[in-house]
């Protein structure tokens, strides 16, 4: 179960450690408390980790408490990329633009 490999930072945040998956450049941070963590989908955790491996990602692959599995990136996700080494991805915005 992937939840066991996450680290609770504090009452509202879980960390997906950078060693969770080979290739991750930064950690993942999911804003969930102990109530909402029960609803975390394993596939959504994987997506947070996958995004953390994208080139030029800055600081962390972040997800909000309304996180659920989306197209490539989770819905409820925030990812910032460096303008020099980073990327832009339509999956990071989704189909329902704006």
């Amino acid at each position: 179960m992937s939840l066991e490999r996450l680290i609770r930072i504090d009452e509202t945040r879980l960390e997906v450690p950078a060693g969770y998956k080979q290739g991750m450049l930064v950690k993942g941070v999911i804003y969930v408390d102990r109530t909402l963590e029960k609803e975390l989908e394993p596939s959504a955790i994987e997506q947070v980790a996958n995004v953390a491996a994208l080139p030029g990602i800055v600081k962390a692959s972040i997800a909000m408490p309304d996180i659920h599995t989306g197209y490539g990136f989770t819905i409820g996700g925030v990812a910032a990329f460096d303008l020099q080494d980073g990327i832009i991805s339509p999956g990071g915005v989704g189909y329902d633009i704006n």
Partner: protein
Amino acid sequence: MKQDVLPRMRDLVEVLYREIPSGVGSKGKIRLGPEDERKVLLRGAQWAVENGYGNAADLDHIESYGRIDGADPSLISSKAYERGRAQQGTLGSGNHFLEIQYVDEIYDAGAANSLGIYEGQVTVMIHTGSRGFGHQVCTDFLEVMERAARKYRITLFDKELACAPVSSPEAQDYLAAMRAAANYAWANRQCIMHWTREALLRELGTSPRELGLELIYDVAHNIAKIEEHTVNGKKKKLVVHRKGATRAFPPGHPELPAAYRELGQPVLIPGDMGRASYLLLGTQKAMDETFGSTCHGAGRVMSRHQAIRRAKGRAIWREMADKGIIVRSAGRETLAEEMSEAYKDISDVVDVVHRAGISKKVARLRPMGVVKG
């Protein structure tokens, strides 16, 4: 006030349902010629105001003032143009909605007062986006990006993460097309808000001043933007992707209009149709921790498919009516897909972002009347 409109809720919902086109592939009252559609893509909500949909003052209360620079209509496929032509000023389907709500709880009296929000007050919330136009832009560019990821040899865990280096022509083209879709969405909500005002004025037989339906804020929650953030003590421009996440800029941020400069950016969190929605404010902690972002809604716990199965044999509209909420929907299955139990409890979600400090609660809004696609 709530008690003034509650007895007329059925009529009001009916009128709004009639005035605001909704449903899958719904077509609006606006038919855009190619030149007009280009203008929508370039000028967003400003196009709407210039064409008589709403007031110039509305624009101050829209993220990016309702128009993001750098949109390029020449990068839009003919298919996207085709889909966008008749859908400007339409609600669409799925989780999109128009709700008549009331303020049922205030958490921050000072902030609520500054925003002109008080208990029992009637509010309207509009949740929709760039409709088929934006969907087509995404579809078109996913293909481009899959090729680009191979071309630039980017290793991906999942092909759905298709992407290209920021400075590549592929990424720049996507950004310019996505901005066009973002402008389409801002224009769309502006038109819908305008018709909502007109319909309520007419139905309630009142004046704009008395009705007082002023825009608090309009925010995006599916967008990529180039923004300045502080990383390791240094100011840096980054491209921030928010997908199902809302911008939540703090007090003092230069992008905020004068009215909100001291308060912080208002953030609207739409919940499911049976529970509640929230009004929050952005914080410095969001800027420090989450690139100035917070949550965007309840988040599904059931797929649309699962929800439809779970709702079999039930009359969701009646269950809602029993709770005192009048619902009108174009699609038969929409209500099943959108029932409360298909979503996380919005209050749990908002509680986390409030406790984490990445935004702060101002007020809770309860639905009275819902128009669904």
